[in-house]
């Protein structure tokens, strides 16, 4: 069975259009033939193969995308040279004007394509078409191209035009504006609003700072593309190990809290009637297993984390990732419940031991009084909505994604970490 037609269409649609466009312009030659042959090979593989992953892998293995683009570039290059060589061998005012017109035509064509792309994106976005005006940073590209076209139309010769491009830095402006300071600010604001960890924010801060520094060094306030690209890679490279360690330690205390809650709650009288045990085939047996086995699992988990980071189960809660999640409202549990679990339940959660009656009583009371859950659990969503609305309009987040439900909890809000 061939690869799903919708997937093949999505992957090859652009290439089909490019080939048709060349034919419509009456272009011909070896490169056009080669483009057609490459596309035919891509179509053939789509029919012969059945697995989407294998299909896309084969397209890359055979370098088909690359070969198609290569022949396309050569075809356009030859066509442009032919158009510019009306009086081949003679360089006079007419030839000069023709060269300039060809160049300006290419820039005007680029503007047209950018506008068309934006229109297409807006059509795809339907009701949210206005978002494209926020996300699609075409203005800065237009700002670079328009003075260039104006310069070309001012009556200068082609070499004067080229010289002024360099003198005014417009050549760099054309290379650079793929990434803009505005889009980097957007990513930084998004990272701050998400507040997943300090690394995700630091990375975006440094990328924006790098962009500003490189842009400031340029005549036309455009960052050098290559320096910016490599600089961003270095920033990612620098922070990635720390971010991974952070997340792994976070996983350590999250799982510890999960088991502490399971264990102490399993001793509450209502345990068989609540999740997760109520969903078990035999709730009472499931409760018994939690009571009997969680300490053994938790202490093995503690050994694993100690081997990784030389952190005991208690130490995991002193890692900055814990305070960060508490401060940014990522914590599912309330502060008083976490303090109860860590300070009182953890020390006695030992294989073949049981929590004292006093601890079970506290756990039952917290459950009954509805004090286990963080009352501000909706805050990450509220925080993100503020960021979203600042870019896309008042109340847009709620209109599109709904309001995060305010949790019903009688617990006090987190005020800080005290272990």
């Amino acid at each position, binding site marked *: 069975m061939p690869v799903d037609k919708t997937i093949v269409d999505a992957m090859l649609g652009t290439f089909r259009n490019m080939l048709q466009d060349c034919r419509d312009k009456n272009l011909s030659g070896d490169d056009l033939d080669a483009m057609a042959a490459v596309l035919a090979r891509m179509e053939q593989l789509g029919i012969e193969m059945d*697995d989407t*992953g*294998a299909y*896309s*892998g*084969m397209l*890359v*293995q055979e*370098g088909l*995308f*690359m070969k198609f*683009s*290569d022949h396309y*570039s*050569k075809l356009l*290059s030859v066509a442009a040279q032919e158009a510019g060589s009306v009086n081949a061998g003679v*360089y006079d*005012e007419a030839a*000069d004007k023709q060269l300039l017109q060809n160049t300006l035509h290419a820039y005007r064509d680029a503007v047209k394509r950018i506008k068309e792309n934006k229109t297409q994106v807006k059509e795809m976005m339907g009701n949210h078409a206005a978002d494209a005006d926020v996300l699609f940073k075409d203005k800065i590209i237009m700002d670079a191209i328009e003075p260039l076209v104006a310069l070309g139309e001012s009556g200068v*010769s082609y*070499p*004067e035009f*080229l*010289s002024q491009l*360099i*003198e005014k830095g417009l050549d760099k402006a054309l290379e650079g504006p793929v990434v803009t300071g505005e889009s980097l600010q957007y990513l930084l604001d998004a990272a701050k609003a998400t507040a997943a960890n300090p690394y995700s924010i630091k990375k975006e801060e440094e990328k924006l700072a790098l962009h500003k520094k490189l842009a400031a060094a340029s005549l036309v306030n455009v960052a050098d593309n*290559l320096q910016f690209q*490599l600089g961003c*890679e*270095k920033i990612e*490279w620098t922070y*990635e*190990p720390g971010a*991974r*360690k952070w997340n*792994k330690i976070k996983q350590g205390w999250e799982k510890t809290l999960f088991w502490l809650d399971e264990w102490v709650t399993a001793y509450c009288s209502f345990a068989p009637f609540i999740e997760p045990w109520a969903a078990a085939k035999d709730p009472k047996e499931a409760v018994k*297993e939690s009571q*009997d*086995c969680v*300490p*053994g*699992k938790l*202490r*093995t*988990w503690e*050994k*694993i984390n100690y*081997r*990784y*980071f030389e952190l005991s189960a208690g130490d995991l809660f002193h890692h900055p990732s814990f305070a960060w999640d508490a401060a940014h409202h990522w914590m599912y549990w309330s502060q008083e419940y976490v303090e109860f679990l860590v300070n009182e339940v953890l020390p006695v959660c030992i*294989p*073949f031991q049981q929590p004292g009656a006093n601890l079970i009583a506290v756990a039952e009371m917290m459950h009954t009084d509805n004090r286990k859950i963080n009352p501000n659990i909706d805050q990450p969503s509220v925080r993100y909505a503020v960021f979203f609305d600042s870019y896309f309009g008042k109340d847009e987040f709620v209109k599109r994604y709904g309001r995060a439900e305010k949790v019903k909890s009688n617990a006090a809000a987190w005020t800080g970490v005290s272990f």
Partner: protein
Amino acid sequence: MINYPEAYKQYYLLRMKQREGNADYSNTYAAEKALFDIINSCTTLEAFKDKIGNTNEEVAMALVTDEQNIRLRHYEEIKETVKAACCRRILDKVKQCKNVSELVTMVNEEQNLSNIEITTDTIYPFADMLFLENMEIWEQAEVPAAYKERYAAYANEERANIEQAYAAIEKEMNNWQPGWKFNFEKIDEERHRRLLPYPNEVIAAQKQTTQQILNK
């Protein structure tokens, strides 16, 4: 009346000056200077056309050389050996290109190959210790005897999960590179090792356990 030879001299002078004194672009500067020297020695564009030869194309080759050298230094500094290898291959082949068309094709081909190498340069699923951790928990947790058999079965399920995860990655990677096999030696190469937040002895032990499970 426009003096075209003078206008072009000015243009090529500006191009040369752009790179002057920039050590990163010394090859480009030399090539631009060669081009400028030619036009500067001509009084007509016809003479320039006769003398230029492939000097213009050499500027493109020099620019690729300089940019790849910049990239190479960057990847060597951060020890990204797979990406650095692509730069070296391009640098080795630049001089063999007879014209810009060949140059563009060569760079595209090398980048395509590099994309495949980057995709297949993976140590997943080893990097995700989840299965091994779960297996250890089921095997090592101190639990009453009544649960031992069940927990041993859970541990076996994790072993099967590990086998499946490695089989799945081999299948996936073979889409990109036929014959690809998981390479345990890669784990210790710095670009991968630095991303694993565990001590060496943990890595060594986990590697051994995984190899035993996979019979490798």
